[in-house]
């Protein structure tokens, strides 16, 4: 019999064989300290960064907390735990002098940014996005700072904030994610090298989207950024975070901490497109992404997390909201893609403390290849959170029959006036859907992109326009390969 049936295995193989597009390294002299972690290393990092004593004390305390903690293993992921003495904890691209303008940037660095598709000058002129770039560990370029300063908005690297705005950093650092919170948060607090800091004053509406671009460059370095974002009463800010890492044989560790503080009536929109190197098809290399992201909402404040996760070998990440104030709102919109041998255990926590607080969770998982994706979410409603509401929707889309998708919803309700809804679906991209598209002249590769886009629409719609386009492209790249 003449076989008309397209071999599904072949199709899947094509679909899952896309190589990582951002696997280049930049040759820049780096200022690196010896690998391994000790009290001396923590002191050295602090010294290199010319930090004040209080910061060093904070780090040392965190380091000693970390020593007493154990790496968690409750997540639904398998990996050999990193040897924390084999990691380089500080690597800064060497710069001869402080930069006055972006034109003084190292040409090699500039090339890297170009390859990443973020020409700073272009971005500066065209899109009105203020960018703070973290390469390895030190923030190398911050644009738009002066324009923002006119509005009283502070947007700079955290190292700079420690020096220039110690009162704000001291007041808020570690208030949402304390060092003792978890193993990775403690590690981050001890050794974080840079990250972004943002403060929006009372009643200000930040006129542009603020953006950070993270990239791991140095071999064997861990990236430990620290982000602290404070939206004062009645203010608004939209923050974008994008990540890539070059391809390497060994696994690179990424343990970031993000803290958001939304004061009364403030609103923070935090969007992430994560594209760390996922490792090759045999699962070699790839980034271990262990991130703690949490925000606190005061009265009638709102925090909205949107994430599109396509990279990393291991993802362990639960952007959460503490809905402390009455009438506060927490949102979580997520697309998590796993392919080949990637593993992701991701979700959110919504902790309802305030009355009439509301939360929405839309989590979309897409699993292909031999990957494993898990949604893990906690909705906790305390006794005082009267009339609070939660709506959760967790969907998974499977491609092929070698991947796995899991859902672990935890719900704790301690009062009777609250309302919780949970919906979940699991589906496969059907051959009938693909055939339907084919019959209309849409090729298989396009058809998969179309179906995946439709599936993710609720989440992609939450992203700012340019970011949504980038995210769509990323989804296509991570799933499609050279079909047809």
């Amino acid at each position, binding site marked *: 019999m003449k*076989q008309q049936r397209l071999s599904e295995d072949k199709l899947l193989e094509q679909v899952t064989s896309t190589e990582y597009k951002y696997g280049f390294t930049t040759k820049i002299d780096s200022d690196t300290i010896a690998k391994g972690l000790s009290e001396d290393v923590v002191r050295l990092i602090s010294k290199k960064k010319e930090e004040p004593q209080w910061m060093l004390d904070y780090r040392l305390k965190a380091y000693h907390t970390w020593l007493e903690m154990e790496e968690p293993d409750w997540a639904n992921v398998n990996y050999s735990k990193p040897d924390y003495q084999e990691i380089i904890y500080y690597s800064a691209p060497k710069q001869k002098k402080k930069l006055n303008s972006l034109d003084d940037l190292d040409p090699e660095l500039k090339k890297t940014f170009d390859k990443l598709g973020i020409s700073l000058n272009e971005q500066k002129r065209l899109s009105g996005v203020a960018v703070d770039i973290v390469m390895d560990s030190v923030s190398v370029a911050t644009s738009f700072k002066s324009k923002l300063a006119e509005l009283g908005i502070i947007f700079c690297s955290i190292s700079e904030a420690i020096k220039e705005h110690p009162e704000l950093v001291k007041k808020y650092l570690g208030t949402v994610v304390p060092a003792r919170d978890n193993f990775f948060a403690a590690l981050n607090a001890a050794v974080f090298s840079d990250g972004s800091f943002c403060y929006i004053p009372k009643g200000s509406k930040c006129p542009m989207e603020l953006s950070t671009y993270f990239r791991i460059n140095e071999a064997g370095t861990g990236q430990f950024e620290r982000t602290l974002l404070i939206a004062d009463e009645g203010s608004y800010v939209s923050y974008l975070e994008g990540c890539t890492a070059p391809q390497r044989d060994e696994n690179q560790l990424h343990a970031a901490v993000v803290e958001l503080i939304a004061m009364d009536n403030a609103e923070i929109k935090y969007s992430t497109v994560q594209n760390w190197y996922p490792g090759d098809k045999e699962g070699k290399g790839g980034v271990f992404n262990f991130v703690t992201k949490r925000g606190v909402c005061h009265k009638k404040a709102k925090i909205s997390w949107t994430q599109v996760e396509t990279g990393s070998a291991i993802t362990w990440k639960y952007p959460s909201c503490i809905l402390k104030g009455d009438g506060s709102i927490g949102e979580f919109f997520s697309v998590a893609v796993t392919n080949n041998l990637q593993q992701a255990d991701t979700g959110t926590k919504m902790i309802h403390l305030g009355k009439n607080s509301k939360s929405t969770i839309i989590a979309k998982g897409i699993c292909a290849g031999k990957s494993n994706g898990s949604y893990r979410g906690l909705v906790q409603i305390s006794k005082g959170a009267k009339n609070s509401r939660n709506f959760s929707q967790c969907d998974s889309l499977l491609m092929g029959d070698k991947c796995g998708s899991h859902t672990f919803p935890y719900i704790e309700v301690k009062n009777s006036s609250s309302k919780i809804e949970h919906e979940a679906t699991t589906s496969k991209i059907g051959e009938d859907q693909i*055939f*339907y598209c084919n*019959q209309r*002249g849409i090729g298989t590769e396009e058809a998969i992109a179309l179906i995946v886009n*439709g599936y993710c629409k609720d989440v992609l719609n939450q992203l700012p326009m340019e970011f949504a386009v980038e995210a769509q492209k990323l989804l296509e790249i991570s799933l499609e390969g050279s079909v047809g």
Partner: protein
Amino acid sequence: MLKIENLKAGIEGVEILKGVNLSVNSGEVHAIMGPNGSGKSTLASVIAGNECYEVGAGSILFEGEDLLDLDPDQRAHKGIFLSFQYPVEIPGISVSNFIKTAITEKRKVLGLEPISAKDLLSKMREKMELLNIKIGYLSRNMNEGFSGGEKKRNEIFQMAMMKPKLAILDETDSGLDIDALRTVANGVTKLKNKDNATIIITHYQRLLDYIIPDFVHVLHDGRIIKSGGKELAHELEEKGYDWITKEADKKWGC
């Protein structure tokens, strides 16, 4: 335009089509009728290139080219359109976005620029009027939450937009109430011209009251056992299929 010779096809090793011969010229309307399980939908699927079916023997020539060598999307680009019996849902993708993608892909293959949003919209307006479709419908997601009638209307709407050379309507009348049936049938009739052809697959005769076929074929147990003019449809409506199928069963030894 279309020439099917000795076509044998099946699914999971079971042969369903056992040697179909059919010839369709441009400007013609053919009706393929037959009892349940006779292979009508299989025939439609195989012409369109559904990969769930295995083709064992025979050929399908379309304008001189063997369709069996082409992927389903390539067949669509050549001008073959299938109105599905059970249109599938594509969540999150609006009708307008879907149609735009389909038209863009076809134009890409033909080496044409993408159609402008303005032209596309005015074309959609024109076809919607033809099929009595309201504008809000364009922003609904493909077949999601559509009634049976809406799904079928959506199929014919796409057909109107894609302007195929050969349209195959697979049980388009099922699930339609009488008003919808009339609208859909009128639409199909208006889209008909001397350069295109239509194959109507149906169980009942009622659709053929509105779209008058030039030829009627009876498919039974994977073979066309009788062909005739439009009067054959009326005869079938009156007498049922038994009188023909019994004869055929004797001949083929079923």
